[in-house]
């Protein structure tokens, strides 16, 4: 009979169980000459939700370059086709170009078939391209749209795996946004409730993650229309200075004024003519 070991269940606070193991591993790996893979922060909060009549996509608007905010109002919700939009987290150039290339190819496909494209088609094209590049294209996407089969929402990871879910979040602020979703998501929400939920999820990311910030952009896609709300909520307006810190002339009293002329002697004079013919 195997003896049952008594396991101490962890009580409260962060578990530091693996810290010693990680330290040992790091040392071992360093001996061989490599380093442990570093987690890549993607500095964004993007999310999407399926509601009764369609999809709501949301994104923050901060673009970061290391620790510096490069763009305070960049657009992270990209156009794929009239009925499909895609949020992008990760390397800005990668998300921009990937979505544009797939948008172009999807338009060619749509002209050839004579139909509005399916979200599943866009999903396929994106994942096949990302897999081909084996994760070197740093694009983490939230793809959403409404086609003849109804509303669809996918999350696409840089290595090419995809998930089809009723609510998804991506980016460094994804945990904060997912916490809001897990708490308040319901099936078949109304449009206003869904917009409020997405707005709150992105706001959670903006205020609790350093990589996300500025405004909240929303995109509401339904069968008959698309509302591209940019900005939907300007949560981080620059404050107006309350005081004037300019001093009037004469605030500082002048006690003494001396003028010293600089005696400069012309040593050499050369003229270079411009050819203005």
């Amino acid at each position, binding site marked *: 009979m195997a003896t049952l070991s008594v396991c101490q269940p962890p009580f409260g606070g962060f578990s530091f169980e693996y810290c010693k193991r990680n330290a040992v591993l790091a040392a071992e790996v360093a001996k061989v000459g490599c380093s442990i893979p570093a987690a890549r922060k993607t500095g964004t909060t993007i999310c999407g939700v399926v509601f009764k009549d369609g999809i709501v996509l949301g994104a923050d608007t901060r673009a970061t370059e290391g620790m510096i905010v490069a763009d305070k109002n960049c657009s992270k919700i990209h156009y794929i086709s009239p009925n499909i939009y895609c949020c992008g987290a990760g390397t800005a150039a990668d998300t921009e170009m990937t979505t*544009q*290339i797939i948008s*172009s*190819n999807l*338009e*060619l496909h749509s*002209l*050839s078939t004579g139909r509005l494209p399916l979200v599943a088609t866009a999903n396929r094209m994106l994942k096949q391209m990302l897999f081909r590049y084996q994760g070197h294209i740093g694009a983490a996407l939230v793809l959403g749209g409404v086609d003849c089969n109804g509303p669809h929402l996918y999350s696409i990871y840089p290595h090419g795996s995809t998930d089809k879910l009723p609510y998804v979040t991506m980016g460094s602020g994804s945990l904060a946004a997912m916490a809001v979703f897990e708490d308040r998501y319901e099936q078949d929400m109304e449009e206003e409730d869904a917009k409020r939920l997405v707005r709150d999820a992105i706001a959670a990311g903006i205020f609790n993650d350093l990589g996300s910030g500025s405004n909240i952009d929303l995109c509401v896609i339904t069968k008959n229309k698309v509302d591209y709300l940019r900005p939907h909520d300007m949560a981080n307006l620059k404050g107006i200075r309350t005081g004037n810190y300019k001093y009037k002339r004469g605030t500082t009293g002048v006690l003494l004024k001396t003028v010293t002329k600089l005696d400069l002697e012309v040593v050499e004079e050369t003229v270079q003519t411009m050819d203005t013919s």
Partner: protein
Amino acid sequence: MAERGYSFSLTTFSPSGKLVQIEYALSAVAAGAPSVGIKASNGVVLATEKKQKSILYDETSVHKVEPITKHIGMVYSGMGPDYRVLLKKARKLAQQYFLVYQEPIPTAQLVQRISSVMQEYTQSGGVRPFGVSLLIAGWDDACPFLFQSDPSGAYFAWKATAMGKNYMSGKTFLEKRYNMDLEVDDAIHTAILTLKESFEGQMTEDNIEVGICTETGFRRLTTAEVKDYLAAIV
């Protein structure tokens, strides 16, 4: 005629300075179904005859008037399969332009590129010229455009033109009927009348195709809409 000996090779000039194969390609176009293009003050109209050889054909499955982008469309006279190839190339060129310049391709740019493709096929080995003339209609920056692209690679901008069978009588008819202040609705009416000039048999909404290009973009008219315009003529 000395021409005869030079008519089989595309890449050899004849003594009179012509490339006879291209002349023959133009004859192939002139033997094709008639098509008409009219530039109105607020748009462009393209129309073509789509007569099928048998009533068993499913005419909804293939179209002659096709969009290239949201704001440019085209129609042809001549060989259908050659048209398909050029249509695919045109669509791809338009997308490539957008990816580089981040703006919808201007009509003139697209026409130049397509004509270059057609010209390539008159100066390469082992190929023959395209047996189609294209009518390309587009709208950029509040201006309508109508261009024709020939198998030789030459392109022309038109106010109104006709191609295919009986194109001379079509052009004469348009010369009389065209004026600069036409609106799109009048232009559609005129285009249908021009086609009717050389039409054998009864013209119905199933054996002609009409496309219009306006501020809102390019679209092919539905059979119901064509039926309404035809009813207005009779």
